[in-house]
């Protein structure tokens, strides 16, 4: 296998997952600048939107500075060779309000996501996009919370609904490489569609996990410029492309130009470069969605609680993505408990 020519399709959610890192404040101008750079670098798919995808601008997760339509249009104008992608979570986004709008703006690739055990909520959304002749992937988020068997079962549902590829996300950055290998191998064996991996770097494993995914048969890998993304950030795209070049894995992306895109991202998008902060490590260890780092830090400060305690409690309660309101409830509970212990 090592000697065969291998190639991987890169999807770049810098302008979507990165929105988590700036509290969903990316402007249409910033989106246009980075999308243009990604287009020049030959990145196949550029994903754009609120951190939780289409229709997710909310008090719950964070209000977006730029509405979906303006964000997508800004990218659409400059993406001449790269495809425009969106992330869609049913429960946030609906067909009437959000998918129709994205179809009208000219989105090329729809990645319809659910928590890793809830694939059946994506049936109508996946079929709707298929009926409209656009590309549609299934995405299983927080995939560390399910075994190989369950992932295969849920992924097979998405395939049956019409998904043309299946991505598993390590939304909490909780995996080590052997976790990725076993899951991707099981999915590649069971499915008749390409399998992909979306990493987060909470435990410093994002690149290593992505390599394991490719070695196990994955052919779609997500990465973002400078790792710009939720929590400790995503798999850093520039480093990923360099490593793939070294391994002889073809991506069709120009190394110098993707490095340039990284510099442009750092200059125009990034507020603080992603680091593996203490709290992000705990998010990864406790298996809690990386996007919770910002609200957990904020609420921990307001309630005078250790953010690490909040993460471990959220992990104990097995919260999934989209349950940000639980952070306040947990903080209230921990602060009561703390008072009782002191008194």
């Amino acid at each position: 296998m090592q000697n065969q020519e291998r190639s991987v399709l890169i999807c770049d959610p810098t302008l979507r997952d990165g929105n988590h890192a700036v509290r969903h404040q990316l402007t249409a101008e910033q989106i246009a600048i980075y999308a243009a750079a990604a287009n020049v670098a030959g990145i196949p798919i550029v994903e754009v939107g609120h951190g939780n995808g289409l229709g997710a601008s909310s008090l719950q997760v964070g209000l977006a500075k730029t509405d979906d339509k303006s964000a997508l249009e800004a990218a659409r104008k400059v993406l001449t060779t790269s495809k425009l992608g969106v992330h869609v979570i049913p429960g946030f986004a609906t067909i009437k309000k959000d998918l129709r709008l994205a179809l009208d703006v000219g989105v090329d690739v729809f990645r319809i996501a659910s928590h890793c055990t809830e694939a059946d909520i994506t049936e109508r959304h996946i079929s709707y996009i298929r009926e409209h002749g656009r590309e549609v992937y299934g995405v299983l988020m927080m995939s560390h919370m399910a075994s190989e068997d369950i992932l295969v079962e849920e992924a097979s549902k998405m395939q049956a609904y019409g998904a043309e590829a299946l991505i598993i996300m390590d939304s909490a950055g909780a995996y080590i490489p052997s976790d990725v290998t076993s899951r991707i191998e099981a999915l590649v064996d069971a499915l008749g569609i390409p399998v992909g991996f979306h990493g987060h770097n909470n435990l410093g494993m994002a690149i290593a996990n992505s390599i394991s995914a490719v070695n196990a048969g994955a052919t779609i890998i997500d990465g973002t410029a400078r790792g710009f993304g939720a929590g400790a950030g995503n798999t850093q795209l520039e480093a990923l492309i360099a490593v793939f070049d070294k391994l002889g894995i073809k991506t069709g992306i120009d190394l110098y130009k993707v490095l340039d895109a990284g510099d442009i991202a750092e200059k125009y998008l990034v507020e603080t470069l992603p680091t593996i902060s203490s709290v992000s490590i705990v998010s990864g260890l406790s298996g809690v969605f990386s996007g919770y780092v910002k609200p957990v830090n904020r609420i921990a400060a307001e309630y005078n609680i250790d953010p690490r305690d909040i993460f471990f409690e959220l992990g104990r309660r097995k919260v999934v993505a989209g349950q940000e309101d639980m952070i306040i409830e947990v903080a209230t509970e921990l602060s009561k408990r703390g008072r009782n212990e002191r008194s």
Partner: protein
Amino acid sequence: MKNAIKPLKVAILGSGNIGTDLLVKTMRSPYLTCTLFIGRNMASAGMRKANELGVKISDQGIKAIQDDPACCDVVFDATSALAHIQHWPILASLGKHVIDMTPSKIGEMCVPSINLEDESSAKNVNMITCGGQASVPIVYAIAAVQKDLEYVEVVSHIASRSAGPATRINLDEYIETTEAAVKKFSGAKHVKAILTLNPAVPCVDMQTTVLVQVASPKLAEISESISKIVSKVQEYVPGYQLLVGPVLENGRIVVTVKVCGLGDYLPKYAGNLDIINCAAIAAAEHYAKSRA
């Protein structure tokens, strides 16, 4: 029975989780008696349960009511939105009072802690959604204090096991119907409803959070208004409790409620199914009393 009211005759159409749980609740009510429990398959779990309880059952669907219109005064329709759209003209022509458990949006939306009075005149009463029954009382209590709400958001989390195939396939309808109710009862210009399924085992209780952004929040007044309505909801949903707030966090007013089910036919974690059924029973009992 201290109120000497002759119980109202009720037919339950739909033998799934909602219908069967409604049956158990109906049997406990002094104002209601279930005279016919209707499904499509005699072997289903709901039909067997009804049979065990000694209730008359039929597998003939809506035809069972057409064949014997005198069997009931009230019909709970616990089938699906699509089926209800077909059932309604038939039930209307038979003069039945209908309580619609589906998100069909045909009838008047009813939240018992708010508009039971209007409900007695409507012939088709819509029970909205579980998230609507949990969130709308809170939204309404906030709107009573903070006039001219611009934007209201309601977020619910339910246990995966409590979301059957109909809920899952109708997620968009859930959102649209819940948003319509929040808009109607808050007067807000913009609203948003979000639903998340959580597969944790042991199963999580239903939790609903209301989020509101206002220029000058009157927390003390809101708190009083909410505590009043929570007591009112508790009169018909014993497992409804205020968990958080109102608190002001990051410029948002945050209120979280939790709903534990009664554990009638469905497990206690299925507070989402319990609250809509408790609300439907309250609506039916009110109708029974108003006729007496």
